[in-house]
């Protein structure tokens, strides 16, 4: 055996001095992208049709901010209804009780199988079907009754439509998460004397979260934009607000840019939030959310 020249001082425990692999392809890609980006910025800044001054005027105007706050409110409350309802439905769906399981399956079938617009309209026009809603004993006396139109105003109809529909989708996401947890976890918890509910809350759901969070982030971002459907029952949010403005002043492109900018900003905030939640539930498991290697805005751990 003859030692090669690089074998001579290997016992000196010095850090390895190796030539890293070169990536010429990356540099070509960077050059191409840089040129494209420069062209894009140039046209955006020099083409007067973008009307950046109009964008500036409306970005923080009262009607736009009003629409924005409605978008946020609808998204947050609908997602809360969706997530809580989804967990409930998923647990029912997986329950050994055949009645609970069938009820959940039926709910998911109906709410995923009919158009969201139809559901929004349905909640809005519920008063045509039932002018009064009452609390009382079935087929017996009523304790208290309401005018449906007062109880379910436009805002409530929006939340019912968006939230109850979302619950059906979230139910399937949560069910997938729960079923991804190794059955041995349930057995170990059961063998320790934990009840089904304790096992679900303390052992299974926290582990299922790793699988549940990424699609839930998707759902939230998608909900941000789905809220614009409330226009069908006469309510308004960000996109409706800018549409109302450009239908009057015809500055369509600048106002769509205003809306797009806000949607992008909200989506960015949500993505960062998702990263935090993912790390919180990734404890004990090495693989966290994959970070982009060029844009490393997450603190390295």
């Amino acid at each position, binding site marked *: 055996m003859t030692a090669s020249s690089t074998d001579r001082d290997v016992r000196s425990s010095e850090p390895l001095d190796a030539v890293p692999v070169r990536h010429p392809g990356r540099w070509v890609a960077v050059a191409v992208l840089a040129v494209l980006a420069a062209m894009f910025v140039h046209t955006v800044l020099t083409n007067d049709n973008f009307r950046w001054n109009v964008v500036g005027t409306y970005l923080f105007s009262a009607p736009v901010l009003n629409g924005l706050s409605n978008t946020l409110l609808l998204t947050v409350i609908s997602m809360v209804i969706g997530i809580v309802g989804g967990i409930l439905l998923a647990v029912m769906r997986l329950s050994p009780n055949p009645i609970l399981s069938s009820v959940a399956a039926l709910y998911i079938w109906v709410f995923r199988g009919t158009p969201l617009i139809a559901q929004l309209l349905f909640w809005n026009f519920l008063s045509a079907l039932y002018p009064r809603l009452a609390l009382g004993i079935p087929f017996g006396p009523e304790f208290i009754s309401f005018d449906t139109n007062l109880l379910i105003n436009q805002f409530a109809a929006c939340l019912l439509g968006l939230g109850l529909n979302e619950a059906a989708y979230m139910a399937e996401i949560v069910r997938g998460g729960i079923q991804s947890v190794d059955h041995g976890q349930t057995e*170990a918890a059961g*063998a*320790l*004397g934990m*009840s089904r509910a*304790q096992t679900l809350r303390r052992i299974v759901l*926290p582990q299922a979260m790793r699988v549940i969070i990424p699609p839930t982030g998707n759902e939230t971002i998608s909900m941000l934009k789905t809220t614009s459907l409330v226009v069908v029952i006469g309510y308004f949010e960000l996109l409706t607000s800018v549409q109302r403005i450009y239908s009057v002043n015809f500055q369509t492109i600048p106002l769509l840019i205003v809306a797009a900018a806000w949607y992008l900003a909200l989506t960015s905030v949500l993505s960062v939030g998702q990263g935090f939640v993912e790390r919180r539930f990734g404890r*004990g498991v090495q693989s966290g959310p994959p970070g982009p290697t060029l844009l490393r805005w997450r603190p390295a751990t």
Partner: protein
Amino acid sequence: MSTPMVEAIGIHKRFGSTEVLRGVDFVVQPGEVACVVGPSGSGKSTMLRCINHLERIDSGRLRVDGHLIGYREAGGKLHEMRESEIAKQRRDIGMVFQRFNLFPHKTALENVMEAPLVVRRSARAAARKQAEELLDRVGLADRMTNYPAQLSGGQQQRVAIARALAMSPRLMLFDEPTSALDPELVGEVLDVMRGLARDGMTMIVVTHEMGFAREVGDSLVFMDEGRIVEAGAPREVLSNPREERTKAFLSKVL
């Protein structure tokens, strides 16, 4: 005679059309270490899992510490227990799995504290103190804040034993606790189990470690095809098996 810790009479268990247990009888006295050996698929795990009702038996009677497992006897009839009553029975029976089944999102310490906190509703400080003592007892005083993924197989299994001990069980069930371990890690787990046996814990151990069975076991059961073929003192069964099937099995594993 005191009441036996475990008393199984004519246990049958089937999965669909396959009968996995076909009339199993045995008795384990308090403080006894009972080892169970047998070929793969003979029903060893199934029998162990019946003892804490992870599987329900189809016929026979199974008592732990004199109480029927999973059923109540009233008016000459058996009544199925509710889930909460079964959970209560399981607190007194610790179980250690072949594949550890530690909770991966909790540290070693949190794994051991979980059941006392949630099931027994112990105070956090008390649960923590007990968990630290238990982890110290299994030789992991310096690994308390590690997550399972950061521990070796042998260390994980020792955490699992500490976790089972945290509920102060009167009976411990071990299902091939060393089968998933690299050979050099088997010893550390067996040492912990040896210590438990010395402290008088009643244990049922499904194992392929014949040396452990011979040295620590008070009794040895050989199972095949859902029946107990031969039972007796470990030395006796291992050195002078009477049944042909036992001889055939031992000649393959010894």
